[in-house]
């Protein structure tokens, strides 16, 4: 139970994204001077996570299937959000996810200019999921579907790096207490460890953005406290990596983020030697 399994095409892992699409996600939140709807924040976070995952696994000749990916929305319905060629499919090899976004937009991105500054560069930004806010918040059902998918994946990949379930939500479940359903998914395991459940909480309650808090964190929001309790403890190697990134973590830190970025989760996963610049 060490979270040390090799992640490779012959021993892939999986990501199950759950995205809250309920009416409450249309509420606005303020990030500095920027006002955005929660639905915009989570759709953007999910698209960036999928993009990061594909770029991380890209080699000459395509994206390697180190991961299988499911994207489950929950609002009026609970089900796969993948579109086009992938419509209706649950767990899909990463290469297919990369090949079939709903569309690819042109955006600009700031990159180092080599002289200590930043310069804007055009970049292609694939979009798989658009912002939606409609209906209740059937989080319990979404977690139940994640349990089924993780169980299916584990049946044929028993020695894999454990599946990661990443839930992006404002936390206001309307179909019951999500904690037992969260526990059920966390109890599933490969020979390398239990399934990891991480929660990205987008809240209009304000307060300090928090990344991977521990037991001493002061969470001022009831939903945040619930989601924190549902989240898996960060495995030791992820804590070490977070610490290297300058994030304050301790032995009680959990995979929970409050009004902040969770892109680091993708960077936590070892698929071989990292491509990093000298420091």
């Amino acid at each position, binding site marked *: 139970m060490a979270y040390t399994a090799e992640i*490779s095409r012959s021993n892939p892992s999986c990501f199950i994204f759950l995205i809250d699409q309920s009416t409450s996600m249309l509420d606005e939140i303020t990030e500095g001077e920027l006002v955005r709807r929660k639905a915009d924040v989570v759709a953007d976070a999910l698209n960036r996570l999928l993009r990061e995952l594909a770029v991380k696994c*890209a080699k000459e000749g395509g994206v390697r299937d180190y991961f299988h990916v499911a994207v489950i929305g929950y609002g009026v319905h609970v089900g796969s959000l993948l579109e086009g060629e992938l419509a209706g499919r649950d767990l899909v090899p990463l290469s297919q996810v990369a090949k079939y976004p709903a569309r690819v937009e042109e955006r600009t991105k700031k*990159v180092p200019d080599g002289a200590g500054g930043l310069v804007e560069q055009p*970049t292609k930004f694939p979009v798989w999921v658009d912002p939606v806010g409609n209906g209740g918040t059937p989080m319990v059902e979404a977690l139940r579907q994640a349990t089924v998918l993780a169980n299916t994946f584990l049946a044929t990949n028993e020695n894999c790096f454990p599946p990661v379930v990443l839930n992006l939500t404002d936390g206001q479940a309307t179909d019951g207490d999500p904690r037992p359903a969260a526990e059920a998914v966390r109890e599933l395991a490969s020979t390398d460890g239990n399934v990891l459940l991480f929660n990205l909480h987008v809240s209009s309650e304000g307060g300090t953005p928090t990344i991977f808090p521990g037991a001493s964190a002061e969470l001022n929001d009831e939903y945040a406290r619930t989601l924190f309790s549902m989240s898996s403890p960060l495995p030791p190697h992820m804590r070490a990596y977070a610490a290297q990134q300058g994030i304050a973590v301790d032995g009680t830190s959990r995979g929970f983020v409050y009004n902040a970025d969770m892109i680091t989760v993708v960077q936590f996963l070892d698929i071989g*030697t*990292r*491509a990093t*610049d*000298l*420091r």
Partner: protein
Amino acid sequence: MRAFISTFAVPKAGSTNEEYEDASDVRPAAGDDAEVIGPWLAAAVADGASEAMLAGHWARHLTTTFTAAPAGQHLAATILAAATGWDAVEAEYRRVRDDAGEPIAWYEEDGLRRGAYATLVGAHLLDGRTDRQGPLLVAALGDACLFQVRDDELITAFPIDDPDEFDTRPGLAPSRPLDPAKIGEHVVARATEWRQGDQLLLASDALAQWFLAQARAGGTPWRTLSDLGTDAEIGGFAALVDGCRANGSLKNDDTTLLRIDL
């Protein structure tokens, strides 16, 4: 000097030979299992980073640039010289893809923009007062290693001598250096001496870590690597690698050995 050169390479299990991203090179050009006679010898092993695009191209470019560089040139200067040619390598790759009707996809652009990364270890051997011993100049960036064995003893392990020091974040030579001065800060070099009868082993990280772990446990991994292909119990390099991967003593990674028997 007289040196007998042998090179061995096995890709990561689950990868094809085309996906192998280590590289090795020797000058004067020796071919495989060949003897080199002359006043100097240059050898290098590089290991392209898994997460980088065109990592195998960069590893090959680094090793050939190293062996063509003058002995004693600072490794940082060699790496920067290799990086100077990188735009042309990328342009050629884009051209080949366009010609094949497979233009670069969005998920490849970030990686191509960042450039490739690789570790590198290289050695220059020069004749001294006689052709039976002389200066051995070694330099490295990252966790590819050189081992020197004399009289059945490991006398040099460079730049790493502890199997616990390997991880997935070694120092890497960049093909597009953001801060060229940083390369010099991370390069390490050592000047020592070779003698006729020595064995030099240049290895990418997985094999280097295995080698050091075996040595720390009291083993003689250099004997194992000397007897490749001649001892039926060991078999060839691929058999050794397969067996060690299966028993968990060797990480599943591209695995490369360049052996110089003096």
